[in-house]
């Protein structure tokens, strides 16, 4: 690779030079020794590498396990194998182009990532979104949440040993992906939400297609419940495993079903409603003990709540515009360009430079399938952000893994990792 010419040089004063390499610490063996107990150094316990290619680590998570027989003494997660520099890439893209990158963060819930990002930009710029666009966003976000939970349920059950579950959930997931394809043309990398609204209106048969899901899903969910809910094997593997208490879960910054499994009532949709979630009636399922089974129950119950929200949104889906009429951020309709000079200018400006955002910093959070997905944008007043940071729920939830797996059996590690529901694309970004 040719060496990129640095665009500017940092001034270096001769006596007080701090360069990047000076601040870098060399990792010493002592630093690594602290991660495991002293017994590992004498050979009393065994160190075992799990991953990054292990199928039950849901991607490329590497765990360094210290084992005493089958009991886990300490667990050191090693992440970063999927680091793609999304936050850095954002610095070179204008706000509209940045939407495409957000699909790739949590690739199992792309529309929720889109929603968080456009929500943050809308907050920064100060744009109002038409109510129809908000409702369609809610419907699609809930379908995405179900998609995310279906993948979790299938893989989590597969890890623990219930193979058939995986086949059923992926069958149903296909129905949801068809809806995403219907509205955006892509099954996974949707990029459907735009700043100020939607890319285009949903097709006519969208409502029927979603109603079909509402009709089919309750029966399918019943099948899932029959397979797992009271299944003695399932309960033996999940009840009382990977327990994390209320205070610890909060201290580790856990969010989403992993936090609610410990009985903490925190759901961004309820706490700080965005995209008109306050118009809908739904409840937040809570667990009590904070074990793998409670987290499983929270996510299963969320399926019913998602269906409930979708049904209400479909019933009340208003007509009207799907994108804001603020031409400074949203492009004019194509036919207007033919006769309006101003529209042509807006179109040209938006497609060459992009819109300018006011200088400032905002944080906008949404509830993704994994927890609180936050976007922090620091703007310098130009068309490109100075910094975009994603608050990834998977990262914070995974941080609690060593706490949850201390003293567990090695076979339970796969269950605990599955119950935290991580996506490595989001952990590493």
């Amino acid at each position, binding site marked *: 690779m*040719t060496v990129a010419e640095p665009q500017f040089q*940092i001034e270096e004063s001769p006596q007080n030079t701090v360069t*990047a390499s000076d601040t870098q610490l060399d990792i010493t063996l002592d*630093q690594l020794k602290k991660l495991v107990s002293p017994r590992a150094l004498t050979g009393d316990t065994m160190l075992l590498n799990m991953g990054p290619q292990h199928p039950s680590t849901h991607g490329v998570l590497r765990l360094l396990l210290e084992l005493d027989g089958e009991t886990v003494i300490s667990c050191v997660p090693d992440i*970063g194998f999927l680091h793609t520099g999304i936050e*850095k890439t954002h610095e070179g893209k204008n706000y509209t182009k940045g939407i495409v990158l957000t699909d790739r963060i949590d690739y199992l819930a792309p529309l929720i990532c889109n929603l968080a990002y456009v929500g943050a930009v809308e907050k920064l710029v100060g744009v109002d979104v038409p109510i129809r666009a908000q409702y369609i966003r809610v419907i699609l976000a809930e379908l995405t949440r179900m998609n995310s939970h279906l993948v979790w349920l299938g893989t989590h059950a597969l890890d623990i040993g219930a193979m058939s579950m995986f086949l059923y959930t992926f069958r149903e997931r296909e129905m949801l992906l068809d809806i995403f394809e219907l509205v955006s043309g892509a099954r996974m990398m949707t990029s459907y939400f735009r700043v100020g609204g939607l890319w285009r209106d949903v097709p006519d048969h969208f409502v029927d297609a979603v109603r079909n899901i509402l009709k089919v899903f309750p029966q399918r969910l019943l099948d899932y419940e029959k397979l797992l809910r009271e299944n003695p094997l399932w309960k033996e593997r999940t009840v009382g495993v990977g327990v994390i208490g209320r205070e610890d879960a909060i201290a580790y910054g856990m969010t989403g079903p992993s936090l609610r499994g410990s009985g903490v009532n925190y759901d961004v949709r309820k706490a700080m409603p965005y995209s008109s979630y306050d118009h809908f009636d739904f409840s937040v399922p809570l667990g009590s003990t904070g074990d793998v089974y409670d987290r499983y129950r929270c996510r299963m119950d969320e399926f019913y709540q998602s269906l409930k929200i979708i049904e209400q949104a479909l019933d009340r889906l208003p007509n009207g515009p799907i994108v804001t009429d603020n031409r400074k951020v949203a492009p004019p309709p194509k036919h207007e360009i033919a006769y309006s000079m101003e529209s042509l200018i807006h179109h040209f400006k938006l497609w060459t430079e992009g819109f300018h955002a006011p200088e400032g*910093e905002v944080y906008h959070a949404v509830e993704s399938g994994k927890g609180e997905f936050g976007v922090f944008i620091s703007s310098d007043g130009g068309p490109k952000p*100075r910094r975009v940071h994603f608050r990834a729920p998977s990262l914070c939830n995974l*941080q609690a893994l060593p706490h949850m797996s201390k003293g567990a059996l090695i076979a339970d590690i796969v269950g605990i990792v599955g119950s935290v529901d991580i996506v490595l694309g989001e952990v*590493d970004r």
Partner: protein
Amino acid sequence: MDQSVTTNLGSTVLAALGDAVNDVRIFRDEVTLITTKERVLEVLQHLRDVQHFEMLTDETCVDYYPREPRFGILYQLYSLSRNIRVRVKVMLGEYERTIPTACGVYTAANWLEREIYDLFGITFDGHPDLRRIMMPPGWEGHPLLKENPVKVEEVAFSFNRNRIDAEKPYARE
């Protein structure tokens, strides 16, 4: 979120902490408390214990180059009981890329600070496990600093295709 709570929060904290908080900024109903790196732990401790901000949802860094002070460390806090957010911001100069760790106050800061160290090269005093987290251990430099330009490939047209092709890093037929 209740708007008045957000606006009142700044003045309440300012009254309680006095000179530990230098400035309170409100932008789009978000409160940002500006403090210094000497007092940041005191401010965080107060916010957690007295103001009930139990959760550190996010901690990140912004490189404001060419402005001086250059770096901003941001703590995004959330209060479960009061349902409000607040942001604490510490500015660090070009030659003082170090700050005390918040791990003692919020356990969640551990990996978030490792990420800042990895991507920005800010060191955290007293951090229990300050290693790279995203980049490989042998990596040199810190990718999110503004010294590292975002390299984008130029779009090839007929008039510049040969030049772009000649600069391509890989071997051609």
